[in-house]
């Protein structure tokens, strides 16, 4: 590059000749040179900026395009790299405690039609009506020839039906794959499982959602692909459940009851081994809820959890256990049992007259209302309330069924002295059989509270203490004697040392007052009495045993034999071998000291 001189001689000389300042020429040239330099560097910088801008544009453009592509394309399963965790899309299975399937999925197809693609709509409609007798040919014809572009025909069809539809050969009849929920055991444990239905439906797939029971409680867990196909393991034992339902069904028919429920629960872990409520239903074809009449008459109603009843004399042991625990009475203390007992304007009656006074043991063995009322009178309403609350009889059971919160016990608003007296023998406070099972478990397992659960845990619960070990032993001995020589004498099962308490409560009329000839008969039992493992509650709704000269409705004649047969059948299945009860006299001496 030729550099322009700052002081070109020719111009300097001519300027000097004109008498001008030659420095001005130099300044002017310097200015021009600086301007030129500035322009050059500006151009360079602009070029760099442009390049940088282009590079950034390219980068962001790539990112943008990539994002667009990712958002627009269908998701594809990764084909390579198999070491990641297993992810499964299907709803998880539900199994019993031994891993036997209670609910699983089955691939099936849904049938839908696109009338526009149909060649012979009228013929297809007729042939479809032949394959599916519940479809109406005329209605289908109208749908196929009308303006509809799309319609569902059947939600689930079997492979045979699918083949028959294929044979119609109409291109407008199409199939969509479906995953359907199957309960292979039919009505078994129906109330625990609940049921399921299709949620959002598309042609390619449909989501299955739980509608009741554990299917609804654990809906999110069952649908979570991250579980890798692990099944939901319940505490229910399939064979025990089947036996319980069989015996309960037989007992319900024999005793002419309109409903029945049985709960078998582990006293230490709180696991529900079996829970049956009759009448039941098949969750594969779950019936519609009743639109009129009491909900309790629907087969969907889970009597074990939702049915709150006055459970009668089964509550007496709570009053006596509390009095024993507080040291107010001993099993030998004699209490007043003169019947009728008058309290203000109220009169409390016993079923029979048991004489003027009885020891506490006999009050339980003979089930005296008056005796129990006198015992709770020594305890007082506040302490009784606190005690029953600590047994969980004021709140719905925490069991993992969606219906559990609806089984909220009915507690009197004002805990007057008369409520105290009636509640001591099981009237005036309504609770579900599951409440009773949990409370009895706490009574006999050594005195700690257990929360019922339907999930397999295998771990004893460390609940809060409600009564002492010693009181619990006394309670076990009292309840054992009820079976040996008391109201539940039909409950004796050789080899299993059953203990328990009967309860017969008149049913409350919806209009107020009580029915004379309708009862809820309950037997709350546990076995073996010397080392309780299981609690069994059997409740019959309106039973009547009519083999005698007059109808008998007490639990001792109705629920107790059913429960005894149940224990005889179920205990071997639970792996309990019959044993000789360790010296009954020895047990009595431990109670005394």
């Amino acid at each position, binding site marked *: 590059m030729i550099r322009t001189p700052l002081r070109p001689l020719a111009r300097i000389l001519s300027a000097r000749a004109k008498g001008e300042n030659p420095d001005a020429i130099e300044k002017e040239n310097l200015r021009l040179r600086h301007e030129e330099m500035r322009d050059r560097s500006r151009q360079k910088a602009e070029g760099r900026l442009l390049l940088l801008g282009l590079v950034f544009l390219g980068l962001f453009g790539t990112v943008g395009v990539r994002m667009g592509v990712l958002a627009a394309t269908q998701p594809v399963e990764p084909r*390579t790299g198999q070491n990641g965790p297993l992810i499964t899309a299907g709803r998880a299975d539900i199994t019993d405690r031994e891993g*036997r*399937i209670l609910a699983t*999925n*089955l*691939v099936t197809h849904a049938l839908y039609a696109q009338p526009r693609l149909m060649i012979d709509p009228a013929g297809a409609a007729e042939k479809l009506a032949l394959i599916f007798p519940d479809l109406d040919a005329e209605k289908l014809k109208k749908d196929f020839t009308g303006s509809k572009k799309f319609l569902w025909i059947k939600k689930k069809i079997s492979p045979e039906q699918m083949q028959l539809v294929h044979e119609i050969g109409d291109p407008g009849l199409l199939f969509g794959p479906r995953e359907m929920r199957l309960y*292979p*055991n039919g009505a078994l444990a129906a109330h625990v499982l609940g049921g399921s239905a299709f949620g959002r439906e598309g042609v390619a797939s449909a989501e299955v959602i739980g509608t009741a029971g554990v299917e609804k409680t654990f809906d999110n867990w069952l649908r979570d692909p991250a579980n890798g196909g692990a099944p939901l393991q319940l505490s229910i034992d*399939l064979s025990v459940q*089947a036996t319980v339902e069989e015996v309960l069904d037989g007992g319900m028919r024999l005793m002419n009851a309109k409903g029945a429920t049985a709960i078998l629960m582990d006293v230490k872990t709180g696991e529900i081994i079996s829970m049956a409520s009759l009448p039941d239903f098949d969750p594969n074809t779950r019936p519609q809820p009743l639109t009129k009449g009491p909900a309790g008459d629907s087969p969907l109603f889970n009597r074990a959890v939702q049915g709150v009843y006055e459970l009668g004399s089964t509550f007496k042991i709570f009053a006596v256990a509390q009095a024993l625990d507080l040291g107010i009475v001993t099993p030998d203390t004699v209490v007043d049992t003169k019947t009728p007992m008058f309290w203000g304007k109220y009169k409390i009656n016993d079923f029979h007259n048991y004489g003027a006074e009885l020891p506490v043991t006999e009050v339980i063995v003979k089930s005296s209302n008056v005796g129990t009322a006198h015992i709770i009178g020594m305890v007082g309403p506040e302490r009784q309330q606190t005690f029953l609350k600590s047994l969980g009889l004021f709140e719905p059971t925490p069991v993992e069924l969606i219906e559990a919160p609806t089984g909220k016990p009915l507690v009197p608003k004002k805990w007057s002295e008369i409520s105290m007296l009636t509640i001591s023998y099981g009237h005036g406070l309504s609770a579900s059989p599951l409440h009773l099972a949990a409370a009895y478990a706490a009574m006999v397992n050594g005195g700690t509270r257990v929360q019922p659960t339907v999930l397999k845990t295998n771990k004893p619960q460390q609940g809060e203490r409600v009564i002492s070990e010693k009181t619990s032993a006394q309670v076990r001995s009292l309840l054992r004697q009820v079976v040996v020589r008391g109201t539940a004498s039909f409950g004796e099962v050789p080899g299993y040392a059953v203990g328990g308490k009967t309860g017969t409560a008149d049913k409350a009329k919806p209009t107020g007052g009580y029915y004379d000839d309708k009862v809820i008969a309950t037997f709350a039992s546990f076995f073996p009495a010397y080392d309780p493992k299981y609690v069994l509650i059997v409740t019959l709704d309106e039973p009547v045993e009519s083999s005698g000269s007059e109808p008998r409705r007490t639990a001792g004649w109705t629920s107790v034999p059913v429960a005894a047969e149940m224990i005889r059948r179920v205990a071997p299945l639970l792996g309990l071998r019959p044993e000789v009860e360790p010296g009954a006299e020895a047990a009595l001496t431990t109670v005394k000291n």
Partner: protein
Amino acid sequence: MRSIILTLSLIAIMGLGFWAYRENYRTQAELAEVRTLQSEIGDLRESLSVLNAEWAYLNRPDRLRELADLNFERLGLLPLEPEQFGDVAQITYPTAENPLLAPVTDPIATVASLDQTP
């Protein structure tokens, strides 16, 4: 010298190109196989779940109870009862009269003799 290097590198490039071509096709073939295998696994999973469901359905307690009742004459199956629990002490000691019930003194010979019995 220069031309030798040039020739060698040309040969090397051709060799590498051929190798890359082959690897490419092999990878694609492997991917295709993985795809078939995975769809096969999917199908097998599906049929496994169907078989499991069928197993559970065929073994449902109601059906087994019915079958046991139907075949009672041949099988004589009854529900499990408490009386069926036994004790080791209740089993009589093997007697000498029946050689099959004799106490095992020579395990190897016993196993060999059991093998020969049809």
